[in-house]
């Protein structure tokens, strides 16, 4: 029975942990402007993150080396340093968006100025990083993040024309009011939101934190293969809610408050309260993960001791990096920059940075020196190579499209 509970907990945490401010905003924006015609990207992104997270989890469990150690060892210092700088800055951008997301969600419940919430949110993130055990932190934010199921409930309560939604998803067409360039720009943004690099840094470092052994790989595969797709379904329900309520009213999403209006219309104050709690938990969990990722990337690249399983005093520079990154992120937010805009840029730059971490992991997953007989199978390599092409195309097209469309206007 205990093992069953453990497995269930793992899956539920994966669902709750899958969504962050990037998924919330990008899916709502896409739903409010393109309806269901970009849902196929979420499916591709979810399959991609399943392949990537599962591979990096296996590499960490078998070789005991987390992502950025592998990047340093296989790419050498020069390419590794460029990779580190790009990944670190984009992770900082995502961290800023997540802390901003927490503040915006709290503003929804209290209409207090978000800039008052931001330092409070950052301090709370740091306190959890400093004191709370890794497993507890993961489980609580994951389970409470499950409140986002409220979006799926809202979709049912809205009683939409399911046939219409389904045909919109299965026959994607570019709406008349939007250009092709903007369509593909948001396809890349949605792909970047589903396959955020920090999820992989966190996932593989978590495998080392929790001292996974080869036998844990099967359980992690279950969490990923069940939890992430269900998380993907939640993303699609966010887009569907926006399609049903916001699209007909020409409401193009630019603020977090607009995203939750369909939930209020469907289930009133109670369902809205549940969803707001879910948003706070999901963005808070993601803020924890991105802060940890900033520590993981730097410490693993420079060979410092790292990890929450160690006392802070035994991983001093790791903890100092997280404190400094949180302060910088909060500083950026206090300048009054709109967290939703920061989020939109962070997901696109995530798509740009993906190859930097994907390629080394794909190479090492085939290297017997690291993996012994747990090297990639033929199927995993085929999937891995397909996504290598998809990821490279997305990364190359992201910046030109961002410039041509003026970041999706």
């Amino acid at each position, binding site marked *: 029975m205990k093992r069953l509970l453990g497995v269930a907990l793992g899956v539920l945490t994966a669902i709750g942990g899958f969504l962050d401010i990037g998924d919330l905003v990008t899916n709502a924006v896409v739903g409010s402007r393109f309806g269901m015609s970009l849902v196929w990207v979420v499916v591709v992104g979810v399959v991609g993150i399943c392949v990537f997270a599962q591979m990096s989890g296996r590499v960490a469990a078998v070789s005991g080396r987390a992502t950025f150690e592998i990047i340093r060892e*296989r*790419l*050498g210092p020069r390419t590794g340093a460029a990779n580190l700088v790009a990944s670190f800055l984009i992770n900082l951008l995502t961290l800023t968006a997540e802390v901003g997301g927490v503040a915006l969600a709290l503003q929804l419940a209290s209409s207090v100025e978000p800039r008052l919430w931001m330092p409070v949110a950052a301090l709370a993130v740091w306190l959890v990083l400093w004191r709370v055990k890794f497993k507890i932190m993961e489980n609580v934010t994951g389970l409470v993040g499950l409140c986002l199921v409220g979006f799926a409930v809202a979709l049912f309560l809205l009683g939409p024309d399911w046939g219409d939604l389904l045909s919109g998803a299965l026959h994607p067409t570019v709406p008349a009011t939007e250009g092709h360039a903007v369509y593909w720009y948001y396809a890349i943004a949605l792909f970047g939101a589903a396959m955020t690099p920090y999820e992989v840094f966190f996932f593989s470092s978590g495998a080392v934190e929790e001292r996974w052994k080869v036998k844990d790989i099967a359980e992690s595969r279950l969490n990923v293969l069940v939890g992430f797709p269900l998380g993907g379904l939640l993303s699609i329900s966010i887009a569907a809610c926006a399609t049903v309520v916001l699209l007909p009213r020409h409401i193009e999403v630019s603020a977090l408050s607009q995203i939750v209006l369909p939930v209020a219309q469907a289930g009133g104050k109670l369902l809205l309260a549940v969803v707001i709690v879910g948003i706070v938990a999901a963005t808070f969990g993601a803020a924890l993960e991105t802060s940890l990722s900033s520590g993981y990337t730097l410490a693993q690249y420079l060979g410092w001791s790292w990890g929450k399983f160690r006392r802070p005093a035994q991983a001093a520079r790791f903890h100092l990096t997280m404190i400094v990154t949180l302060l910088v992120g909060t500083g950026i937010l206090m300048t009054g920059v709109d967290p939703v805009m920061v989020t939109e840029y962070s997901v696109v730059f995530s798509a740009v940075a993906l190859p930097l971490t994907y*390629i*080394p992991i*794909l*190479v090492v997953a*085939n*290297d*017997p*020196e690291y993996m012994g007989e747990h*090297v*990639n199978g033929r199927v995993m*390599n085929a999937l*891995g*190579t397909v996504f*290598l092409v998809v990821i490279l195309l997305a990364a190359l097209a992201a910046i030109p499209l961002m410039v041509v469309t003026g970041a999706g206007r």
Partner: protein
Amino acid sequence: MILSDLLDLPVQDPTGRRLGFCIDARLVLDAPAGAGPLAGARLHGLVVSPRTRTSFMGYERSGVRRPWPLGALLERRHAGTFLVLWEDVVGVERERILVAGNAVRYDARLRG
């Protein structure tokens, strides 16, 4: 000297003809052991790649050829990598490594 003095330097024979670039140094643990448990690591030879300046993920020597597109691409870039024994090295200067004219070129692939 430090290893960086050797790595990425062009390798030439006495006539000045370039044989390639030194992308790695092969060590053998057979020198007399110092204080620690491991034997001393003796500089045994230099791994030279005729075309590329730097090794990429050690592909050319580890016999790993998967995933297919990456493996094939890297293999072509590193074809013809060879090993030169250290005693055949005539001299190491700031800008190049001089190798004896009659130095034998060995297969650089590791047994793995």
